[in-house]
């Protein structure tokens, strides 16, 4: 490879990368405000009341009976989807439009359950799942 080939190879790489990236999609869907353990650190069982929780976190999505009294549930979702179509690389040379799609979706569904006693004082609180922040990556394997 001579020195004069370098710009041509760079241009070819640029075109290839652009072709791959042009088929990229990055999508995010959030339902309500995702809560973290830091957001609920103020809740102290035996001390914090329902109204204090509502004051800090807003009204819950649902209220239900529990054996101790009442349970409030805060649901949230942080879905991340990314997709790359490598078929675009072959389109300039192919008589058909081939697709080779890698995509991945992470449904970050979670909920915070707060249990209260008959007087509206927190008994316990827990996250339904322990969703950690996941990056966008389309590799499905």
């Amino acid at each position: 490879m001579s020195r004069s080939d370098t710009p041509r190879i760079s241009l070819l790489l640029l075109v290839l990368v652009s072709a791959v990236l042009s088929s990229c999609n990055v999508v995010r869907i959030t339902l309500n405000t995702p809560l973290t353990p830091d957001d609920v650190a103020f809740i102290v069982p035996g001390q914090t009341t329902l109204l204090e929780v509502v004051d800090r976190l807003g009204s819950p999505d649902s209220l239900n009976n529990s054996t101790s009294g009442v349970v409030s549930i805060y649901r949230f979702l942080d879905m991340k989807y990314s997709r790359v179509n490598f078929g675009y690389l072959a389109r300039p040379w192919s008589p058909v439009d081939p697709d080779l799609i890698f995509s991945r979706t992470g449904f970050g569904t979670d909920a915070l359950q707060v249990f209260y006693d008959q007087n509206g004082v927190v008994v316990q609180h827990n996250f339904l799942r322990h969703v950690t922040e996941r990056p966008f990556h389309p590799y499905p394997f």
Partner: protein
Amino acid sequence: MPFVHAVLVFAVTAMLTQGCAFSRGTLGDDIKTEAVSAIKKGVTTKTEVLALLGAPDRVLPLNGRDVYQYYRYDAKAGSLLLIIVNFSRLSVKGDDLFVMLNQSGIVEEVIWSKRTENLEFRFWPFGE
């Protein structure tokens, strides 16, 4: 020079942007803040609540009390379609109002927050 830079940034952005899209969806009627403010604990009756807010979306039995739940959802989506890559973001938030009634049909507690007020159209899917 700042003007030239601004023109350059605008030109590059215009060249890279194929298009953009705004979409919005709502579920349920708007819960009016004035109507909620008119509900007084220990005073307002079930009939008055129904007159102010209409029939609830759900009636929950909670330890011998009735709880009326009213909700509304608002969704805002923004898409930025670039030549290189497409970014989309959909944000959904809900307003939930719970009116707890005692066995005499008098309001005992009101739990309410309007989360949709701060809902914005967003394109950038990364970060917060």
